[in-house]
């Protein structure tokens, strides 16, 4: 249609039968399925696509692929707005909306292009040198201003509405890239019997096979690619992933790949992830990533209309787009000369072919002259001119004569750089090959081979043969036998010829790194200022540090550095490439793990019961636990957390409460040596505990510090159940398995986690016995005589097995009732029903915390991995009659120093004065310095029993200081007040209530 004035009448891998409507900067255009945004824009005669990052220079498409540094646009709108998308890789879809970015007020007229006028002073290191003083200005003034001016588009300001997923895959041979070498490798590996995964970043397979007019065995190369794709796709042992970029190589044969499932759609289908992150484990990999063409370096080489020669051919052959009307070909590599004939065949008037190299084969010249192009061997392009797009090229011929050519396309080919970055992801440096004039991946990660252009092959025939060889070898290494095959033959092709590198002394703005606006002068300045290493030049100039990671620019800059420094290419070396090879959205790494699923969540069996009672839930590790159960107050609003917690705690002290303690770790320990193991795990003795009894135990780490505490109950002569804190459940299980399997494998003892098997509830308060007695009936005697403090029994409630423990964390008469988890919800409801007549109150973690602080029980705040048994006042538990883990190292001088901060109780001098956890303890009247620090507050609570704020703390020589007044200083939250040091047990220190 006439609306696409640059669309060729025939050819191309586009679907002319249907039209794709899209918009760029609000203008409506049409393209075809199979187009990229860039090819469709070029078909419509739109050449100006972007403004550059620093100087706001007008830019068009330099390439026809994902290495594009220039044509970065914003795609989509609203929550799906996506900046910095490469128009050359963005697949066109119906309704696509794209906008140019980093320009104001418009792409044509960009006020900040004035930056370009200041370019002489904005060179490499400008910011480092200029914005140093005053120092404080950097964060508040300079950096924000610079960031505003140097734009890279705008991120969406709403949450991403799409989903992402992660998938694991395994294969014998992974082939990266589907050009001639990749397709040949995949076919060879599969024909040998290997399971194959083939990844192609583009939406079409074929690589250069679909971008060039080439033949294989006398037929069009694109037809061969199509047949190869058909064979691979039909095979159930082959997975072909298009739109999938292998972005990183990791240890152990793992490869990361990103599949764009819905980036080519207006919006993903319902349930369809937008992108998928593949973790591929491959026994062997064939890297067939090809090569990228290098720009030539001359003033104005960034102007829209200046394009890589291979890209110009790709637009003509693959997309049926004339990349211009009148062209100059600037070739510094033999193969770039073919561009002249290809463009002529596409109806483009080729004005001249310029090659800076002297003494070229006559065949090249003759082919160009046949199409009527003027040939300037030994000539150089002095300038590409035109605003904003290319209109004219000035060339200096070998004779010194200056010639000017009117043109709207300059196709430049500076030779091909093997794309070996992935091979250096694990630290293997690329090796300079003087013959090939390229850095090649010769030192390879384990399991990886390289094939085709990335390995230095230049012609189609060589790439195909290399692919077949590496694919077959990969399969053979994975244990398969490859059948022999007939070699495939491409047509006659020019090679590279003598290499040509950018020369020092370029005048004007000649760009090396188009995306970060780094010019040849910047690199020259860096070398003048003493930088020699390419890694340093990179960081000083920001070369190669944009989102394209210097794919088109690095080698030209290295060559310039090598010449200026006199080091030569080999010594200058190449930078290491780290993952990701292409940008990967963080959402793709997160996959399903977002929002509610950001991390695992565990629900107790009675979760629904807590919710039904209005619980506000809190995170306790992965667990959701009831924090408090707010009620509507008769005289006003719903209780806040403190009001609810205080009411719940008071109800436990006065009547009875029920608390879900299912999250505590529970370990079933069996075997003739179970008691012996417990003696070694706990600091105190357990083997002498009677059946039907529980005991509090303290566990140390090997280094003598406290690991965890809890109770263990003896259910039978050779069977115990251990309980751990919620936080340390997994850690203690690990500790126990280590002790059992590594330290004392001769002990006959088995340990199995039963944390999930038992739902457990604390029933606490002076009326708890009445409640349980009512529930279980008179056949169960819960009297003090029959079931004293620390008694344990296995009973039944109806048909359900129940474990009953007389344990108390609250200091009240209390029990814990456990049932198999499937009955947990029913038990919670049953306890509430049975407790109705006694005014039972559900209580949560906040009330639990109040109750245990009032009783001085250490918990998370105190068991912080830095305390000894002595610090907690539990030194007396440490047995002197047996060995146990941590015994020896607990005796280290530093751990028995009487100056150590030790557990104390703290009471606010002014009861209403709020105490806060984390406040530091200081002697009164002493300056608040780190040297004067005497300890800190570990837990705090408002105590309904005492009618004021209390706390636990670790205070130097604490037990000797009961009665002293110290200062609780909390500069973070503005707290500063006096507290009285006291024994840590505030309520019922004699323990009469819990034994009641």
């Amino acid at each position, binding site marked *: 249609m006439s609306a696409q004035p640059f669309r060729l009448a025939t050819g191309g891998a586009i679907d002319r039968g249907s039209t794709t409507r899209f918009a760029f900067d609000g203008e409506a255009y049409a393209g075809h399925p199979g187009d990229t945004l860039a090819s469709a824009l070029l078909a419509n005669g739109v050449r100006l696509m972007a403004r550059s990052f620093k100087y706001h220079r007008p830019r068009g498409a330099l390439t026809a692929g994902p290495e594009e540094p220039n044509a970065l646009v914003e795609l989509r709108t609203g929550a799906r707005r996506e900046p910095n998308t490469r128009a050359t890789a963005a697949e066109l879809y119906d309704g696509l909306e794209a906008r140019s970015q980093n320009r104001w007020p418009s792409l044509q007229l960009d006020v900040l292009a004035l930056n370009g006028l200041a370019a002489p002073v904005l060179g490499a290191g400008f910011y480092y040198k200029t914005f140093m003083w005053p120092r404080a200005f950097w964060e508040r003034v300079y950096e924000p201003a610079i960031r505003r001016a140097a734009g890279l588009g705008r991120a969406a300001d709403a949450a991403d509405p799409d989903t992402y997923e992660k998938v694991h895959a395994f294969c014998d041979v992974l082939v990266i890239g589907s050009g001639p070498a990749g397709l040949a490798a995949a076919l060879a590996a599969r024909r040998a019997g290997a399971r194959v995964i083939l990844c192609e970043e583009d939406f079409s397979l074929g690589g250069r096979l679909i971008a060039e007019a080439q033949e294989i065995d006398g037929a069009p190369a694109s037809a061969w690619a199509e047949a190869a794709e058909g064979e691979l796709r039909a095979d159930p042992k082959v997975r072909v992933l298009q739109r999938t970029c292998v972005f990183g190589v990791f240890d152990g044969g793992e490869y990361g790949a990103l599949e764009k499932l819905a980036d080519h759609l207006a919006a993903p289908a319902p*349930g369809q992830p937008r992108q998928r992150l593949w973790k591929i484990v491959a026994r062997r990999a064939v890297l067939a990533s090809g090569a990228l063409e290098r720009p030539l370096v001359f003033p104005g080489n960034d102007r829209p209309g200046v394009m890589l020669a291979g890209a110009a051919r790709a637009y003509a052959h693959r997309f049926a787009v004339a990349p211009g009307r009148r062209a100059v070909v600037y070739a510094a590599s033999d193969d770039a000369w073919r561009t002249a004939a290809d463009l002529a065949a596409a109806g483009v008037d080729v004005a001249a072919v310029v090659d800076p190299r002297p003494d070229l084969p006559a065949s090249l010249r003759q082919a160009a002259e046949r199409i009527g192009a003027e040939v300037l061997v030994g000539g150089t392009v002095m300038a590409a001119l035109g605003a904003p797009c290319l209109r004219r090229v000035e060339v200096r011929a070998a004779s010194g004569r200056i010639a000017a050519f009117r043109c709207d396309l300059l196709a430049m080919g500076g030779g091909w750089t093997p794309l070996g970055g992935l091979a250096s992801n694990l630290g293997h440096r690329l090796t300079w090959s003087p013959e090939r004039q390229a850095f090649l991946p010769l030192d390879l990660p384990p399991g990886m081979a390289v094939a085709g252009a990335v390995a230095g092959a230049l012609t189609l025939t060589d790439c195909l043969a290399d692919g077949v060889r590496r694919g077959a070898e990969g399969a053979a290494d994975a244990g398969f036998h490859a059948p022999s095959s007939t070699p495939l033959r491409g047509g006659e092709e020019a090679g590279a010829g003598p290499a040509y590198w950018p020369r020092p002394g370029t005048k004007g703005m000649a760009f090396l790194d188009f995306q970060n606006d780094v010019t040849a002068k910047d690199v020259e300045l860096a070398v003048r200022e003493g930088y020699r290493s390419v890694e340093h030049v990179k960081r000083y100039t920001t070369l190669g540090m944009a989102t394209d990671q210097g794919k088109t620019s690095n080698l030209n800059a290295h060559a310039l550095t090598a010449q200026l420094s006199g080091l030569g290419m080999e010594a200058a070396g190449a930078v290491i490439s780290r993952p990701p090879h292409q940008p990967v959205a963080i959402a793709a790494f997160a996959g399903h793990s977002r929002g509610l*699923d950001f991390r695992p*969540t565990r629900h107790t069996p009675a979760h629904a019961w807590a919710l039904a009672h209005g619980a506000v839930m809190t995170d306790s590790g992965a667990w959701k636990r009831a924090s408090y159960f707010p009620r509507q107050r008769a005289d006003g609003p719903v209780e806040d957390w403190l009001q609810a917690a205080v009411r719940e705690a008071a109800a436990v002290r006065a009547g009875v409460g029920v608390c879900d303690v299912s999250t505590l770790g529970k370990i*079933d320990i069996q075997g003739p040596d179970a008691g012996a193991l417990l003696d070694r795990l706990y600091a105190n003795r357990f083997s002498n505990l009677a059946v039907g009894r529980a005991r509090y135990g303290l566990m140390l780490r090997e280094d003598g510090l406290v690991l965890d505490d809890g109770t263990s109950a003896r259910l039978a002569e050779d069977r115990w159940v251990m309980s751990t804190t919620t936080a340390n459940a997994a850690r203690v299980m690990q500790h126990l398995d280590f002790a059992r399997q590594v330290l004392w494998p001769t002990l006959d003892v*088995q340990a199995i986690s039963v944390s999930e098997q038992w739902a457990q509830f604390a029933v606490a308060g002076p009326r708890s016995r009445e409640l349980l007695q009512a529930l279980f009936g008179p056949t169960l005697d819960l009297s003090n005589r029959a079931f004293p403090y620390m008694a344990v029994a296995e009973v039944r409630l109806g048909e359900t097995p129940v474990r009953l423990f007389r344990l108390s964390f609250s200091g009240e008469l209390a029990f814990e009732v456990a049932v198999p988890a499937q*009955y*947990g919800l029913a038990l919670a409801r049953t306890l509430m029903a049975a407790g109705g007549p006694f005014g039972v109150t559900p209580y949560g973690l906040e009330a639990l915390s109040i109750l245990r602080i009032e009783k001085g029980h250490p918990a998370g705040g105190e068991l912080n991995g830095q305390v000894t048994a002595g610090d907690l006042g539990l030194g007396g538990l440490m047995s002197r009659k047996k060995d146990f883990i941590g015994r020896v190292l607990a005796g280290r001088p530093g751990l028995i120093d009487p100056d150590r901060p030790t557990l104390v109780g703290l009471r606010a001098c002014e009861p209403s004065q709020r105490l806060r956890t984390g406040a530091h303890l200081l002697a009164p009247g002493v300056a608040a310095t780190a040297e004067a620090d005497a300890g800190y507050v570990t837990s705090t609570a408002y105590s309904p029993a005492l009618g004021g704020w209390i706390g636990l703390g670790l205070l130097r020589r604490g037990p000797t200081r009961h009665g002293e007044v110290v200062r609780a200083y909390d500069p973070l939250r503005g707290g500063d007040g006096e507290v009285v040091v006291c024994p840590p047990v505030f309520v019922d220190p004699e323990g009469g209530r819990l034994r009641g």
Partner: protein
Amino acid sequence: MVEPPSLDAASVFPPGEITGPGLRVFPLDGLMFAAVAARRGRTVELAATIQATFGVALPDGPSQAESGGLSFIGVGPGAWLAVGSDPALATRLAEAGQGLAAVVDQSGAYGLLAVEGAAARALLARAVALDLDPEVFGERGAAVCAFGHLGVVLWRAPGSDGFRMALQRSTAADAWRHLAHAAASLKACG
């Protein structure tokens, strides 16, 4: 005096199934679980006893064996997860394994899912980092592994091409959401 109440058992998974093209994920209700750990040096005798009493050859290593609806899945050295429909599974195993093994009822701890259909592997690949190809993870394949970030026990369903996945009760809702998410992707992407 009223009779002591009897407690109702709660199911592990939300009601319903997850389905898609070539996919059916559904809970297998009414199964009992027991953890079995051999006493030191008694594995051979235990295997003989299990064989004699239940007709199942205890698997050695990460694999599973099944007979008459009773499965043993190797979950560690000298450790198995037994799954069957006998309501007294743990008791019967404990009796048989007296002196030879520690047996613990885990019927409340786990819920079992069937993952069936031609797309079962594609679904599991979205959360399980294991090669489940039939040539690698064969008919007796079993693994203690991660499903997303959750610990699970996974094994091949006896006599079918599907899988069985035992999940801890506390994590079942999480896993169910992950499965539904993955199934939606399967449905959309094929």
